[in-house]
């Protein structure tokens, strides 16, 4: 009895010691989380209910849900939210292209590694640098696109970044180009995980290429598709840098501005920090809801290997 108890005490002393060490090891990220994440989030929630400008006192300017109500009739908010969603047209385009290219690379083809690298280079390139580059590509008078159009048709090309609709096309092309490499890498990894026997068995059953694609490839890469979709949606709601670099003050009639661009504009150019926080909170809620819908809806189309 006595001996058993001693062992137990010793165990718990060891467990306590382990716990103390563990707390020491994870202390830094935990403290960082409190100071740089948890505190700012609470702060943003509170500030979103104030008419705070950074110059006045936060607590004296409490206004309840006024900012949120104002946002509902704020045309620029809806316009930038709409533009943000229009840019997401690039997500399915990138996914389809990515899957097709990955399927191509999954065949016995020489130089796959070099090809893969070439498609991936834009991903690791600095977003600012490539935005600057593409601004030059889209340049009205001397840019690459209009030079090609002139060389082929003899006519002067359009004003890509100045036109309200074309600027969206231009941004979608740019974002697809920038992100395509990631989809390819992820799909390629997913395709390589599919056992060869599945295809061989289907071939014996007389399945043609399309049937194999539809019944084997597509369902078995669906977890990858799900991952790309989720991460692209979350990223898509946060587009900012390319808009700020490639357009002047959000483009003609604010046609290129995204929601984060609008938020930045409100908070740091207009000094409406409280209002900016309200937009930020709404953005977080939108992202949360979209992600939740995706997770709930995934049972309908995301298959697992077994």
């Amino acid at each position, binding site marked *: 009895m006595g001996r058993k108890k001693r062992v137990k005490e010793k165990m718990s002393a060891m467990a306590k010691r382990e716990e103390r060490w563990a707390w020491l090891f994870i202390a830094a990220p935990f403290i960082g989380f409190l100071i740089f994440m948890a505190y700012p989030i609470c702060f943003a929630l509170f500030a979103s209910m104030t008419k705070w400008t950074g110059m006045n006192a936060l607590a004296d300017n409490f206004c309840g849900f006024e900012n949120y109500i104002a946002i509902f009739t704020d045309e620029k908010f809806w316009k930038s939210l709409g533009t943000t969603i229009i840019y997401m047209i690039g997500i399915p385009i990138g996914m389809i292209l990515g899957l097709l290219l990955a399927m191509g690379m999954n065949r016995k083809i020489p130089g796959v590694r070099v090809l893969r690298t070439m498609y991936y280079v834009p991903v690791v390139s600095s977003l600012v640098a490539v935005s600057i580059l593409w601004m*030059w590509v889209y340049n009205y008078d001397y840019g690459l696109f209009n030079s090609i159009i002139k060389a082929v048709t003899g006519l002067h090309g359009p004003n890509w970044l100045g036109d309200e609709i074309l600027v969206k096309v231009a941004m979608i092309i740019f974002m697809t180009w920038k992100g395509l490499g990631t989809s390819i890498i992820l799909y390629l990894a997913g395709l390589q995980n599919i056992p060869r026997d599945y295809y061989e068995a289907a071939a014996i059953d007389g399945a043609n290429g399309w049937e194999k694609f539809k019944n084997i490839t597509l369902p078995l890469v669906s977890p990858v598709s799900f991952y790309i979709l989720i991460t692209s949606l979350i990223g898509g709601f946060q587009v900012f840098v390319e808009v700020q670099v490639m357009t002047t003050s959000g483009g003609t009639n604010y046609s290129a501005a995204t929601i984060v661009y609008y938020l930045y504009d409100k908070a740091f150019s207009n000094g409406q920090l409280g209002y900016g926080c309200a937009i930020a909170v709404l953005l977080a809620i939108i992202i949360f809801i979209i992600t939740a819908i995706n997770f709930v809806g995934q049972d309908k189309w995301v298959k697992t290997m077994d």
Partner: protein
Amino acid sequence: MNGGYAKKNTTFDIIVFILLCLGAVTMVFPLIYMVATSFMTKNQILSGTLTLIPDPLLIGKYSEVLGKGQFINGILNTLKVEIPVLLIGGFTSTIAAFGFAKMNFRGKNALFLALLATIMIPFAVIMIPQYVLFTKLGWTNSLLPLIIPGCFGNVSMIFFLRQNIIGLPTDLMDAAKLDGCNYFQIFYKIFLPLIKGALGTQLVLWFMLIWNDYLAPTIFLRSEDNWTLQVVIRSFNSYYAIQSDYALIMAASTIAMMPTLLLFFLLQNVIIESIAISGIK
């Protein structure tokens, strides 16, 4: 692997190969155009006709860019952020990953999930409060807003290293405990050498992230002296575009992209592998 199958599809494979090559060339073409422009004369650039080969080839823009104090200062500022963050933040992240992977303590899972959930929080939500916090602390006239938060660790690095360490046998730990090692010695002597490769990859990825970061520096750095490289090339773009000095802008952007591209070319296998794993989980 599958003899008859492959033979039948040879023509198709050739078509696929050609399409893949065309696609790949299209992908890198804008970058080639960037480098080509950086070597051209103003006359050639503004001729409005499609040319890719610089004639004459000028390298002067590169020395012009590198001769600009602001540009060099931008590189130095970026490095002043990189070095402390990677050293200190790399250490705190690795040791936390070990704590989460191999040690027992109350609230471990809840805490880990809380940290992981922060990946989903948009930076836009916290950037205003962080800006105010850093202003109050008097940090916005220095590089501290970029350095200090990073020193507390990086959640995605913690996540990946934890995955790595979890796969290692726990027996190693028990054996070391019997030898009288404390937990830090166990981490340092036994587990650290086993995750060197993964740690290196994560540090390289983090280096690239900091190198390419733009949003946080534009918001938090009030003084031009502190601008990091990406902010500097953005301001070059606005400033020299008015003078139509596209060669200079392209030279500056090319130099700014070089370090991450070089790292990628050197370490592409490990980098691509770690990206691919993130999708399969």
